[in-house]
């Protein structure tokens, strides 16, 4: 009898299904995975160290670059931490705007996830459909913040500016004739809220389309059902959160259980899985897109009816309006102070967590009273999820590893930080 030995396979860091720069050393027995050891850190930029060296405000755009697929949610957790330390109140309209954009971000994130997960598993067309809708939502990002990915729109004390009255329109070009232009610009003639309203009206049908392609698809189910099962107790032990935890049957959503901003005034459901396999995680995320659409609709209706300020007028930490800075001496001094030495955050420590599209995203900030954070720890959901991959892939075929990585919904910006 010849002697058989397990062999090691290097999966990544250059692999189309590795979702970025994941290197995994897989121990294989034939085609069956015996162990998986992820090597991470290839995207480590030292965000936490950099934050200690910068004023509180300067680190805000760095938050976008953590989970670059859902940038506004990262900013949100950071802003909540600073607001709690400073003890400043956020105007109600700013809270609604934040919830609106958190939910848009959730849809954006899940769309990217469903597209790339489909691509990994073999449903090539998903990514095209998902990116068609992402385009519209990224236009909303662009309309409020001027950028499509790294928004830097939230501020401690509110948001950067109010929602715009106009939407950017497509211009005529070699590829876009007048007829096509009319179709593309049809929903863009009104304000941003009109555009979002239009999107909310057509998006549920689009989700139905995705589901027609995937939910009952035999190949999709063969690849996902009973793959990477995580039981309820194991999910808790492994520090899972968000859709990963809910798919394993734990009814836990920070928007419901520890509501922040205005989630306690809004009506939405929390989908929960029963088996805890990749298919459940898929179903949970699809349903979350539907619930987020409902939330977006409620926010749009409220925002239409209730104008008001979108940033706190707290002199210590919030930049004054442009007109005030230009016309009054107090405004100018305040502006100068905030942009030279920054604001001082009282001594203390705070942990603020939000229901990020990927799970619980937390910011643990320690201040010693200076104008820079003393320590800023970012708790990213993907870090805990990826840590469990060795356990989840054990006993599965090598092709299932790709499915499981896809179902974790990981982005290396937040894992490596």
């Amino acid at each position, binding site marked *: 009898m010849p002697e058989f030995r397990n062999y090691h396979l290097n999966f990544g860091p250059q692999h189309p299904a590795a979702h970025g720069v994941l290197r995994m050393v897989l121990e294989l027995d034939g085609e069956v995975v015996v162990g998986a050891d992820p090597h991470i850190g290839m995207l480590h930029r030292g965000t936490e160290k950099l934050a200690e060296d910068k004023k509180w405000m300067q680190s805000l755009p760095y938050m976008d670059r953590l989970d670059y697929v859902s940038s506004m949610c990262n900013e949100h957790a950071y802003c909540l931490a600073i607001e709690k330390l400073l003890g400043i109140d956020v105007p109600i309209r700013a809270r609604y705007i934040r919830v609106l954009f958190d939910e848009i971000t959730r849809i954006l994130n899940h769309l990217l996830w469903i597209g790339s997960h489909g691509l990994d598993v073999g449903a090539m067309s998903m990514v095209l459909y998902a990116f068609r809708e992402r385009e519209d939502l990224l236009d909303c990002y662009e309309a409020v913040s001027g950028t499509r990915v790294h928004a830097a729109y939230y501020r401690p004390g509110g948001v950067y500016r109010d929602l715009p009255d106009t939407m950017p329109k497509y211009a005529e070009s070699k590829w876009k004739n007048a007829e096509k232009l009319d179709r593309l610009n049809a929903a863009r003639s009104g304000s941003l809220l009109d555009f979002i309203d239009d999107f909310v009206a057509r998006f549920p049908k689009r989700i139905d389309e995705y589901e027609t392609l995937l939910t009952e698809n035999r190949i999709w189910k063969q690849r996902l059902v009973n793959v990477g099962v995580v039981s309820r107790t194991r999910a808790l032990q492994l520090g899972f959160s968000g859709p990963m935890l809910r798919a394993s049957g734990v009814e836990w959503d920070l928007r419901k259980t520890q509501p922040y901003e205005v989630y306690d005034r809004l009506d939405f459901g929390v989908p929960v899985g029963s088996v805890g396999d990749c298919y459940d995680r898929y179903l949970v995320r699809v349903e979350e897109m539907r619930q987020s659409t409902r939330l977006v609709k409620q926010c749009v209706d409220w925002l239409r009816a209730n104008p008001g300020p979108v940033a706190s007028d707290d002199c210590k930490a919030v930049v004054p309006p442009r007109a005030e800075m230009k016309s009054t001496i107090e405004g100018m001094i305040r502006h100068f102070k905030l942009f030279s030495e920054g604001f001082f955050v009282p001594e203390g420590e705070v942990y603020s967590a939000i229901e990020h599209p990927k799970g619980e995203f937390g910011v643990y900030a320690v201040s010693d*009273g200076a104008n820079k954070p003393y320590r800023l720890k970012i708790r990213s959901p993907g870090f805990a999820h990826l840590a469990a991959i060795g356990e989840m892939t054990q006993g599965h075929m090598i092709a299932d590893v790709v499915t499981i990585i896809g179902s974790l919904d990981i982005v290396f910006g937040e894992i490596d930080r």
Partner: protein
Amino acid sequence: MPKLAESLVQTLRDAFGERVSARVCLGEASIDVAVGDYLEVMERLRDAPDFRFEQLIDVCGIDYSAYGKTPWPGRRFAVVSHLLSISKNRRVRVRCFAPDDVFPSIPSVSSIWNSADWFEREAFDLFGIVFTGHANLRRILTDYGFDGHPLRKDFPVSGKVEVRYDAELARVVGDPVSIQPRVTTPRVFPE
């Protein structure tokens, strides 16, 4: 939430007495534990019916050596854990100082909560805190063969080594950094 935190702090005081110092900070319950009691307290926090902290959300290191305006009087390194109870909807923060500043070491909680595995590896990598009883304490975020612990306060922001490709040696080599560290805005305290 602040009321919840107050009652939780009271329960913690009743349960552990003098062995922990519990306080409420900005509406969040927070306790300090000595190294000797650390594992026992953590295990009870998970299992005792009053607490039931099923999830370890986060573990991180802190280097206090540059804290505040005056020199820091206490021990240099601490490990801070955030626990979450799903069944009771509560959070608590547990801080434990390492007794030795030169060779900081703290017992590992990875057998109590498996999620601690990677979090502790990260704290070891970035701060050099050794978690005794951890089965697989390797570096996690920094490069293969990295020297030093980057989140310690005495580690420069620009790092110590810069890498480049050497055509003659046909491999990547490391040189001491050529960047001059500079401070754009000094760290200041309110007067």
